[in-house]
């Protein structure tokens, strides 16, 4: 039996000299980014979707994950795709967006895309943060009870993610989020942000806050309306795909 869940495998599609490195969200899987990856591969780009540690295996693994592990996973992915491409664009969803922006502040990239990326986590996470490490040893998982924000119910059925969220994992996302906020002013590469007004996880004003904090002069903010949080899978994914394709095309000067 494979350790990685069926459909949870990372992917790497051969293509041209332009590489797109795709980073999924919490507690999701590379599957979230696969349709986008296939779309970019069809445009000719080399596309790699990494798997973040603790994801797409067993929820217990995610209780042992630290945000530094995820940054290291991104570095792994970057070195792989860098072996095949001369220009690399990073594209992340939610947690993947935080990792993307944090990475973009440290490594020269030709561009970065962050989708549905939170500026901050809900206040309850901040209040629990001082006690969450011991607390997470006894209260290991929470089962989300928030209403679904998916608009494409067929795509929702295919969504691969853990139905439970490790408390410790949430606190790691919180710590990374703080890192991300302080890194934004150091980003110099072109950035595009994509959000949905229908996202029930990330409030719309987070988009403006990240946009304002970005150090780069080359920044754009795009919106969709008829999608939930999982932008590259939900109803308006085609619009998201073409926004990203146009961005990759523009920043790499590569004819699709």
């Amino acid at each position, binding site marked *: 039996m494979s*350790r990685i869940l069926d459909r949870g495998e990372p*992917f790497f599609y051969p293509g041209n000299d332009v590489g797109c490195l795709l980073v999924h969200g919490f507690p999701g899987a590379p599957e979230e980014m696969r349709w986008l990856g296939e779309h970019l591969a069809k445009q000719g780009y080399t596309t790699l979707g990494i798997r973040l540690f603790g994801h797409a295996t067993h929820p217990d693994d995610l209780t042992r994950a630290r945000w530094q592990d995820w940054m290291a996973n991104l570095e*792994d992915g970057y070195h*792989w795709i860098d072996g095949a491409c001369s220009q690399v664009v990073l594209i992340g969803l939610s947690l993947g967006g935080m990792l993307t922006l944090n990475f973009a502040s440290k490594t020269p990239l030709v561009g970065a895309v962050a989708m549905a990326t939170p500026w901050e986590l809900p206040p309850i996470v901040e209040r629990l943060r001082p006690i969450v490490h011991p607390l997470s040893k006894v209260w290991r998982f929470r089962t989300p009870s928030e209403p679904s924000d998916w608009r494409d119910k067929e795509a929702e059925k295919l969504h691969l993610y853990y139905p439970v969220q490790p408390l410790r994992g949430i606190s790691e996302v919180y710590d990374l989020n703080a890192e991300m906020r302080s890194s934004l002013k150091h980003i110099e590469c072109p950035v595009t942000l994509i959000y949905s007004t229908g996202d029930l996880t990330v409030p719309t004003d987070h988009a403006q806050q990240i946009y304002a904090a970005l150090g780069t002069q080359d920044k754009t903010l795009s919106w969709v309306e008829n999608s939930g949080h999982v932008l590259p899978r939900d109803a308006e994914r085609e619009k998201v795909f073409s926004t990203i394709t146009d961005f990759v095309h523009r920043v790499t000067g590569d004819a699709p």
Partner: protein
Amino acid sequence: MTMTMPGAETFFFPGGKVGCLLTHGFTATPQEMHELGTRLASQGHTILGVRLFGHGTRLEDMARSRWPDWLASVEDGYHLLRKWCDQIIVIGFSTGGCLSLIMAAELPVDGIVTLSAPYQLPSIPYLKQLYPILPALSTFVPPIRKGPPVWYDMEAAKSRVQYDAYPMRSVYEFGAMLEDMRPRLSKVTAPALLIHSLDDGFIPPSDMQHIHDSLGSTEKRMVHVQNSNHIITCDAAREDVFRETESFVTQFVKHGA
């Protein structure tokens, strides 16, 4: 600042239709597979080197890791390489060899190379007796410092990128991985090349014989090298190891297709 130790980065060399998946050993990093990777790439093959989870970052990350995490890292590499080639040869050093064998018992591979791979826990005094209580001990006993390197090529030893200690919990995971591997070996059927040094002071060459005898493969061959300690991909006999591995991999190249 990066999370990965300088020199411990993963690597990918695009090439021909034969893909080689390279996996390093316990407490080490992709660095110990890098030269073998560049050699195989120069022969025209596609090469991907993975970093095992918990390795090449901080020692406390390794102490947090479990052996199935390491296996998942190898599986990641397998899936990444898949679209770049028609055939996959898994090449693993020591623990990386064991993980390659465990994966090859489940996922289709076209060939296997193990280098200095262990079959059982090495005969370190008291290790077998202490093994069951290592997880408990690891909560208060600090990692075991490594001694000075014993190499035949001391220059090569200097460029090594690795942790300088063994977390006790990880020693337990190493043993648990071996326990998982042994009954799976009969399910491995791909052609196999096994290389071991007669001068390996850590894992005895008899371990290679045990793996060889347990493998389900009909095509399997053992090669002994000399004048190298355990790290045969970097120590004095590395050219012998590269040559044997290259000629094994080259047989998978389809000509005139």
